[in-house]
């Protein structure tokens, strides 16, 4: 999020210097790509940079050929760059995900142990930032959830609880004798705590709410359903704004508490009814199509 805002700010600054705009946007795009490929194998870095250099050049040439002025072309290229940043980040984290997949969940055991220990006993503040750095591997359980993670981590109230939850999930997921299917119900249980805590006036309800979000997010691993993604993202943003607006810290603002209750119930309903319904629909459609056409071309 901060990166996107920074890019937008740079964009605004660039728009102030129209003459330098076209080349600056190209430089900015290449600089962003350079940052993005840091740490990747040299071959991948070279290829990606060459692709982007060529792409940016050709895109600009095509825009100019169509009669767009240089500043307008640069603005469109800047828009494309900023709009593509989330996708770029997903592409980048896919490398970490591939590594974790290759080594299996065993790779998460030491990671989870380390960060759970740090977060719980040793140095909570350090654990937060170290865990932020390890978000790539953790996203094996949160594919598509990195944006939500960044939003949650951007809020000081939620960050601590969210990081602790991530640590717990990584620890559980990495534990060799505990299959993932047993982890999901474990994460689901806290999603009910806001409902229990609401009438009891429990102060730790914010933490419980964060954990419930985690449970919900974990359920949607791999759904790739944009509507569900958008809905959850909107929910988290609302939660984030509501918390900021009411200044809830240790004591919980009523709206936030109610919202968590609503969110838990809604999330539970979405998962248990809509998601399963969608999956069944998709599978039925796929099976029916395969049966009727009988004309699949297998390469």
């Amino acid at each position, binding site marked *: 999020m901060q990166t996107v805002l920074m890019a937008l700010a740079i964009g605004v600054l660039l728009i102030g210097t129209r003459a330098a705009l076209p080349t600056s946007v190209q430089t900015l*795009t290449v600089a962003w*790509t350079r940052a993005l490929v840091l740490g990747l194998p040299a071959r991948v870095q070279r290829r*990606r940079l*060459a*692709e*982007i*250099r*060529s*792409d940016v*050049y*050709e*895109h600009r*040439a*095509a*825009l100019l050929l*169509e009669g767009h002025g240089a500043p307008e072309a640069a603005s*469109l290229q800047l*828009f*494309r*760059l900023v*709009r*593509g*940043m989330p*996708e*770029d980040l*997903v*592409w980048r984290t896919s490398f970490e995900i591939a590594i974790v997949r290759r080594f299996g969940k065993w790779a998460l055991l030491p990671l989870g142990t380390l960060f759970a220990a740090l977060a719980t006993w040793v140095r909570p503040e350090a654990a937060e930032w170290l865990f932020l750095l390890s978000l790539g591997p953790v996203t094996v359980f949160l594919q598509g959830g990195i944006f939500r993670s960044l939003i949650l981590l951007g809020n000081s109230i939620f960050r601590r609880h969210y990081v602790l939850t991530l640590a717990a999930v990584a620890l559980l997921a990495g534990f060799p004798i505990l299959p993932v299917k047993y982890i999901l119900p474990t994460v689901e249980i806290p999603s009910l705590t806001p409902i229990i805590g609401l009438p009891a006036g429990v102060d730790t309800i914010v933490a419980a709410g964060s954990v419930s979000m985690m449970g919900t997010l974990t359920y949607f691993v791999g759904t790739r359903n944009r509507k569900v993604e958008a809905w959850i993202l909107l929910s988290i943003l609302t939660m984030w704004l509501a918390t900021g607006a009411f200044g809830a810290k240790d004591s919980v603002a009523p709206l936030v508490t109610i919202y968590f209750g609503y969110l838990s119930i809604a999330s539970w309903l979405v998962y248990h009814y809509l998601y399963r319904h969608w999956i069944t629909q998709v599978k039925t459609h796929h099976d029916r*199509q*395969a049966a009727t*056409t009988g*004309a*699949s*071309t*297998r*390469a």
Partner: protein
Amino acid sequence: MQDAENRLLLPSHGSIYKLLSRLTKYGVLESRWEDGEAPQREGRPPRRLYRLTGLGVEVGQSVRAGITVTLDLNGLGV
């Protein structure tokens, strides 16, 4: 690239290269970097050129005919 109204919807770099990479892995496309003196002479970066493979042509024809196409990546673990 031709529809001016779609200019704002031009896929991002991340989307395009992920898609191209995937299609290449599936064997639908093949690519090579432009060689020769043309890029230097024209003062531009070399292009990465893509073209449909035999399989890609076959897949394209099947899709146009409304036939369901299933591709898999034997040995690539996807």
